[in-house]
Structures are given as C-alpha cells and as structure tokens.
C-alpha cells in the first residue's frame, strides 16, 4: 500500500519584483511587476507505507514547500496528491487526524502553560479517548525520558527538551504518517542520536511511515533506506542510499607517505593497466583514487610490493555521503547531468 503518492506536483509563487532606489519604490507603488517562481516543479514519487524516506536538498530547493503541500497547508498549483488515502488540502480536517507534523523551527506547544497541559489540549483537539491517551503518553514519556519536564512551562525548556516534547505532541494521536521538517536542527549530538533511535523504534514497532527533511546527512544515514534529492524544485535523485553512494561515490582515496622520494611517473607505471588516477604534491606524498569497482588491495599490492619504495604511512578514506551530496549540489544536477564537472557524470 502506498502511503504517499505524488504525481506531477508543482507549486509556483508570485514574487513581486522590487525596483531599485526611491524612484523604483514609488513606481512599485503603482505598477507592480511579478516574477513567477516555481518552488516545486513537476515532481512525482510515491512512498510505500512503513518506509522512512529522507528528503534532502539545499536551502530553497523546495523541500518545505513539498512538505507543506503534503500536509495540506499549501494548495498545489497543479498535480495530483494522495496522502494516506486523502487529498490533503481538500479534506484537511479529516486528513490531519492521521498525520503527525513536526517543524523543527516552529513550536506546536503553547508557550506559557505546562507541557502536560499542552498535551491535554491536543488530546481534546484530536479527540483521543482518555484511555488511549494515557497509554500512549506513558509510553512516549518513558521512551523519551520526559518525566520531570512535564510540569514545566514550554518557555523554560532547553531546545533539546522542547524538541522531545514536540515529538510527543505530534504523536499523541498515533498518526500513521509522520512529517518531520528538520527535526534535529540545532540539537546536540546526544539528543540527535536519541531522536534518531526513537524514530527508528517507532517505525519498527508501529510501522509508521516517516518523511523527513534534514541538512544533517547523518540523520539520513541512520534512518533512511531511501532518499529523494531535490534541486531547484526538481527531483534529481530518488533511490537507495547505497545506490547513491556507489553511483556517485568517487571510490576510495589512498594516501601514501614515502620515506624516500618516489616520483609520480614511477607510481603511474606501476599501475598503468589499472583505471586509477594519481596525484602528488611532492615526491614524498602521493594520492591515488581507486574507483568503486576496483579492489583497493590490488592497487596497494602494486605499490607496497616494491622493495625500493619506503612507505611510512598509508591512509585509506571512503567518500562520505556528505562529500557526494556536496558534489551533487555543486554541479547542480545528477540525473540530467549534462555538464557535470569532475568525475561525477562519468559514473552516472
């Protein structure tokens, strides 16, 4: 069963152009010029129930706009949309009973009253029966270790504490689909880990479908089996994290430190029959890039086997997801990549 289905979804905003200077401002007063900006441009994807999907992209790539359309906040300009069996913006009040939403940058809780009072109010708003509520609250409070925070007003909580409370607030009605917009923004590593663990458990125990946007790729690595990458309103990658790595990972980088001088041509001839590329800063220091399909040990054997080359240090580094994503962002495209720089497109 599909939890989220999106077909040819677009959202364009009219943005007014501001002319320069006082004269321009006066002219704007009488005749406005508008630019049409496509925040989300013809995207299609579907997410099966029970999947955790990461939604990534640079600032302004259209992540939040998509989330806001999926949660019924914004009405799409065009395209079809089905989330948990509803068209979000059309049957908003019925639809939102099945979803939970956490905006990392915005609070769902009431600022001045105790956390538990906020929860009580949300229970009424969502019409959760007393018994279910108690059970669910106990479970969440215990899992997220909120015990002593419950009676404090929200304004006196730290960001980490507040974020955990936000999660509880969004999950009290036991939603089957949860949207998280930058849930770990600004949190320390311990709280981040805690929240990741919690989301993972929730997905496993309740089969909750989760769609999360983030700038922290460790969130993605820890949680998601699938990523959708967005750039300028278009999907540039949709698939597994492993595929992303193997397709765009530049392979493994091996750095050698030599005791005695070893010139670059010498190294190149040693591996002349292998598709590797060498770079060297000087005669004592060289780097080789081994593509994913090649065995690192093959390359190592060629170099280490030479008795006249004195090696003092070897460092092997795998391309991290961070690097891959940075590469993709920089070149701006991964799929249609016509003018990708570096080795990126050659692997695509």
């Amino acid at each position: 069963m599909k939890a989220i289905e999106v077909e040819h979804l677009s959202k364009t905003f009219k943005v007014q152009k501001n002319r320069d200077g006082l004269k321009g401002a006066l002219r704007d007063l009488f005749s406005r010029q508008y630019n049409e900006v496509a925040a989300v441009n013809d995207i299609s994807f579907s997410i099966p129930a029970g999947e955790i999907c990461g939604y990534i992209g640079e600032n302004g790539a259209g992540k939040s706009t998509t989330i806001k359309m999926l949660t019924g906040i914004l009405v799409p300009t065009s395209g079809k949309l089905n989330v948990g069996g509803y068209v979000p913006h059309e049957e908003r009040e019925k639809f939102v009973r099945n979803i939970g939403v956490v905006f990392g940058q915005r609070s769902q809780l009431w600022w001045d009253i105790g956390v538990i009072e906020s929860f009580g109010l949300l229970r009424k708003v969502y019409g959760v029966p007393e018994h279910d509520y108690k059970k669910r609250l106990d479970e969440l409070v215990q899992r997220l270790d909120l015990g002593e925070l419950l009676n404090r007003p929200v304004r006196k909580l730290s960001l980490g504490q507040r974020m955990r409370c936000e999660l509880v607030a969004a999950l009290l009605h036991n939603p089957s689909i949860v949207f998280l917009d930058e849930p770990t923004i600004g949190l320390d590593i311990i709280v981040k880990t805690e929240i990741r663990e919690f989301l993972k458990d929730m997905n496993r125990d309740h089969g909750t479908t989760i769609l999360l946007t983030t700038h922290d790729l460790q969130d993605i690595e820890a949680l998601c089996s699938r990523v959708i990458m967005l750039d300028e309103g278009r999907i540039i990658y949709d698939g597994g994290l492993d595929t992303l790595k193997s397709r765009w990972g530049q392979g493994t980088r091996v750095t050698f430190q030599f005791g005695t001088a070893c010139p670059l041509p010498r190294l190149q001839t040693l591996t002349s029959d292998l598709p590797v590329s060498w770079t060297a800063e000087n005669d004592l220091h060289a780097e080789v890039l081994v593509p994913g399909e090649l065995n690192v040990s093959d390359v190592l054997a060629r170099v280490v086997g030479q008795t006249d080359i004195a090696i003092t240090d070897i460092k092997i580094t795998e391309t991290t997801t961070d690097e891959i994503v940075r590469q993709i962002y920089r070149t701006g495209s991964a799929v249609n990549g016509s003018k990708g720089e570096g080795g990126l497109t050659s692997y695509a």
Partner: protein
Amino acid sequence: MYYIGLVFEYLKNYMKTRLTYRADFWVEVISDLLMQASNLIFIFVVFGHTDSLGGWSESEVVFVYGFYMVPFGLFSCFVNLWNFSDRYIVKGEMDRILTRPAYNLFQIFLENIDPPGLLGSVIGILIMVVSGSQLDLDFTWWFIPVLILFTICAAMIYTGIYITLTSLSFYSDSPTGIIPLMYNIQNYGRYPVTIYNRAIQFLLTWILPFAFVGVYPASLFLGRDEMLHMAWLTPLMAVIFLTIGIVSWNVGVKKYRGAGS
C-alpha cells in the same frame, strides 16, 4: 459538541495562563472599563448642550449605547483578529493551525479568546436597565429571547465584517491598516444612524452594516416604530454577512502561501 468542548478547554488554558500574568489581566480589565466610561461621558457632554439629537433623547441614546455594548462584548471575547496578520501570516503560525483537525478559523478564535471582553456585555445590560427605567419602558417577557437573538445576530455581523477584512491578509504580505480604520467606523454604529447624513446612513446600513449592531435592533425595545422593519432585518443581515465572511475566509486560506522555510 466537539467544538463546545474545545471552547471550555481553551478557556481553562486561558485562565491558567492569566493566573501567571495577573497584573496584566487587571490592567486590561481596567483600561477596558475606562474606555467604556469615556464613551459614555462623551454622550453626557453632548446632551449637556442639547435635549435631543436627531429626534433621540439622552436616555434613548444611552440605551442604544448600552445595547451596542452587549454584542460587542460577546464579539471581542470570542473573535479577536487584531494581530492575525502579524502572528499567523508573517510569523507563519497558520501552518500549525492548518495541521490540526478543527476548523482553522475556529481554532484562531479559540487561541485568542478574551473573556474580560464579556464584562462590557454585562455593563451594557446594566446601562440598558438603568436608561430603560428612566424611559419607563414596559418590560415584557419577549425582551429576553429577542435580546439574546439580536445579540447573537449583531455579533455575527461583526464577525462577518471582520473576517472578510482579515482574509485580505492572505493576499497581501504586509499587514494592512484597514482593521484599525474599521474599529473607528464601527464606533459610528453606537449612535442612532438618523443623526448622520444620507451617505453615511447608507454606508452604515448596507455596506458596513454597523447600524445593525446598535440602533436598529435597539429601536425595537425602545418602541420606535419607524425602524421596526429594520430591526427585524437584523437576523437576515447576520446570515448574509457571516456567510460572506466565511466564504472569503475559505477562499483566502487556499491562497495562503506560508512563511519562511
């Protein structure tokens, strides 16, 4: 039923919050009272110079003012859209509202609930009783149900007008100055419309029908037969203007563009 339950929940929370900021609460109540008192004093000053204003005696004008206060109190308790544009559009709190399973406008009413406003209604009733007895009005049983009906209708007219105007903020990013202007215009409604010229009478009757929240319904109790038909038009106007308000609100929500990230 669900919505009535929510009203009580939000009221409970209002009380809890207010207990934390007690001084603020009393300042608000007292400034409200002073404002009403200054309006009333203005009427007394005017009648210090004349006995009749466009055919209305002092006690009648005070009675109309008293009636005007009752629905206005109800309105300002439950419908408070003063800072809507700032809080919900510019700061983007509308996002949160729209992800909850209750009608969005109703949630906004509840979040801004302001029970001290009801004090104005109580004072309004007292003013009606005092000025009514000065006028030797015959109190009959139907006064009470009709008063309740007209109060609700008048509050609906206010609500309709204000949500229509507030829904404009879905189209324009910056908060408009139209709401404060409206609060000024509505003040005309607390005096008998017949004292104004024809254009203003027309405006206050058919375009911004603030005459229907004061003088027209109040005239029924005063037994002013020339306005009788207008008084009974109040419920119809209430339905029309509330409908316009809700429709333009719902259209506006579809145009909501969210704020920031």
